[in-house]
């Protein structure tokens, strides 16, 4: 299967590394021999119909900050949509950074792929949070597959689990910790008695938070995941405007301490009930949603099955790359079993 990757940052690099490391096993178990025919970053692209040399991709990206300088394969300043349409790939992996300020480039990448008949795996949350119903319609119209399991819970199969639960049962409501960075900050404020600024600084130092952490801290990242969950699992045509969002910026340490004294913890919680809400909420200490460090937790309340909770790492390049690989294999198997 020929793959194009747009966005060659942490996740893109983790993905090609994973494909290389697991190539023997992937071929043995699935007959899956992926070739990267295009890798696009902000400065250009590397193209090869036979498949790019993964070692050269990683080496050049590390040394030059771009893949556009790889001898023979590199091209600087490309039209991304043109590359996507003409590189001959079967699948596009959209892994550009999620920026709500300008959702258009990522949306254009997905549309270009659908138009040209490529299947798509998106790790980027923004196009889904902004335009999910329309994008799914375009994918269906062009009879291609559209997967995005890495957008919520990274490597955790949050959407797949919830969809399976919703098949035989009914999801009444969802409560979830979906952002590792803020969970780490709140956890450190409780464990070590740090104030917000110190905990944030520590998260940045450990690489959990971006240098501009506002999307995490202000609840926007969680809100985007909430919208995706609502559309995909609950079949609700929600957009970001439908989510009531509050963040944890400058949350006073006392709020954490007061909650702790009552045997409770403060978490940045996504709640999907009648309304969609994101904000700091108190939960029971040591309950299913009380996850430490930068972990995620998703708790589904089912009509017949009771509470079902999934906990685990919900961020990170390698973790997210496993989500992408899961989607790629899903597409690979679906293609093979198509009539």
């Amino acid at each position: 299967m020929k793959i194009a990757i747009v966005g060659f940052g942490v996740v893109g690099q983790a993905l090609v590394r994973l494909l290389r490391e697991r190539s023997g096993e992937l071929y043995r178990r699935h007959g899956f021999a992926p070739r990267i025919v295009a890798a696009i970053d902000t400065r250009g692209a590397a193209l090869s119909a036979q498949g790019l040399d993964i070692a050269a991709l990683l080496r050049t990206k590390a040394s030059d900050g771009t893949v556009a300088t790889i001898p023979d394969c590199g091209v600087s300043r490309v039209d991304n949509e043109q590359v996507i349409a003409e590189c001959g790939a079967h699948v596009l992996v959209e892994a550009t950074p999620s920026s709500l300020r300008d959702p258009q480039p990522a949306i254009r990448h997905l549309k270009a792929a659908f138009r040209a008949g490529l299947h798509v795996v998106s790790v980027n949350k923004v196009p889904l949070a902004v335009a999910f119903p329309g994008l799914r319609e375009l994918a269906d119209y062009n009879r291609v597959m559209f997967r995005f399991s890495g957008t919520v819970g990274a490597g955790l199969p949050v959407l797949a689990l919830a969809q399976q639960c919703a098949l035989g049962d009914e999801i009444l409501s969802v409560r979830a910790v979906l952002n590792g960075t803020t969970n780490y900050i709140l956890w450190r404020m409780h464990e070590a008695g740090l104030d917000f600024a110190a905990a944030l600084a520590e998260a940045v130092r450990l690489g959990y938070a971006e240098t501009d952490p506002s999307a995490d801290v202000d609840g926007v990242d969680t809100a985007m995941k909430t919208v995706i969950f609502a559309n995909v699992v609950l079949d609700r045509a929600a957009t970001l405007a439908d989510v009531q969002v509050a963040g944890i910026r400058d949350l006073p340490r006392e709020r954490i301490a007061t909650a702790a004294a009552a045997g409770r913890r403060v978490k940045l919680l996504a709640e999907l009930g009648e309304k969609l809400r994101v904000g700091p909420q108190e939960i029971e200490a040591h309950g299913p949603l009380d996850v430490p460090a930068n972990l995620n937790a998703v708790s589904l309340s089912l009509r017949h099955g009771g509470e079902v909770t999934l906990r685990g790492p919900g961020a990170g390049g390698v973790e997210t790359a496993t989500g992408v690989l899961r989607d790629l294999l899903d597409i690979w198997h679906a293609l093979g079993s198509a009539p």
Partner: protein
Amino acid sequence: MTIVMKFGGSSLADADTIRHCAALVRGRGSDRVVTVVSAMAGVTDMLIELAQAAADGTRMRVHTLLGKLHERHELAARAFGASEAVAPLLSQLDTLVAGIGAVSELTPRSHDAVVSFGERLSAVIVAAALDGHAMTGHEAGIVTDDRHTQANPLMKLSLHQIRETLQPRLEHGEPIVVTGFIAGTQHGAITTFGRGGSDLTATLVGAGLPADEVWIWSDVDGLMSADPRIVPEARLLGHVTFAEAIEMGQFGAKSMHPRALEPAAEYRVPVRMRNTFHPDCGGTLITDGQPNGETVRSVLRLRGSALVTIAGAAMVGQPGTAARVFQALADVGVNVQVISQTVSEAGISVVIPASQLDPARVALENRLVRTGVARKVEIESDIDVVAVVGAGMAGVPGIAARVFGAVARREVNVMAIAQGSSELTICFVVKADASATAVQALHAEFGLAG
């Protein structure tokens, strides 16, 4: 308030009528208005003829038609200082027509490209009259499948793109004029919607923004309780439901095409039908509101139909007979308007357009009589379908008794009856010369004159 206003071709006949339409838009003061336009009156038909003439190689006809189109649009454009805006479009049209002539072939795709010039030209002229910006439906965000001449919008994608494209422009207070009827595929090829196309553009834009109301300006006041040519005391209906409007459209009322009402009904955008030449009239408001206590709202008739009865004892208790009847009709492209079958009688009656009677008859005789499935095909040409429509009829006992009682008192013979399970409509078949009497009787029976 955000309003989408759509002007049909009859409202855009020349510079004077265009000026009048522009005044109706301007009259909304601080409201935000998106204007959707059809081609100028008669232009679409000329373009269709032009495309065919070009492919047929009838050069004189091409020359004449192009001349008329140039003159019509140049004259209207001059009144608003838009000559320079229409010139490049007209020259593109010349080139396109020459190309079609050179290959002597008219594909559905090039047909759509030629026809699109009607709306593109009128949009540019109306935009000049409004000091606004003209866009094609595709530029406004509408994407369709690739069924040229009969395209269907990719609804969710289109609504999203309409909002993305038009909202920021509206916030700048810029008057926007969008071409009705034409849109484009995902690859940018021009497509057209087919019947009801400009209204569909208007309701799509209305649902996408979303707008508070969509106003459809045409040359009728709105929906009536009956055709005033048959019932002089017929009254304008101030408010109907989407379901009623769709049903009335099916029965040939001067309503909107049911397809155009779909996006408005689904996304709950009220639609108001208004008369350009009678702007003081409030028109008919179409919403998803509950019925207002009235049962029957309107009495309609569908003319030029034929009643076909497929009969034979062999059909009794024989599963699949109905399927064969409809398959036979579908295979020759016959549109079935009414279906009626009784439990005891060995017969199925269908009403079809009289114009399709011949192919229908041959198909049924060949597929059913020849094979012994049915004994004979009986034809009653010269019939009309009369329908009473009203969302409030559902669950109210005795409506049918009143309908048929009123008709019987006027000695009109009812030949077949059908009622949908939605109870929105009761319709029946009568001889063509009795249909006016039936409509008058029902209009009086239900007190529709108010």
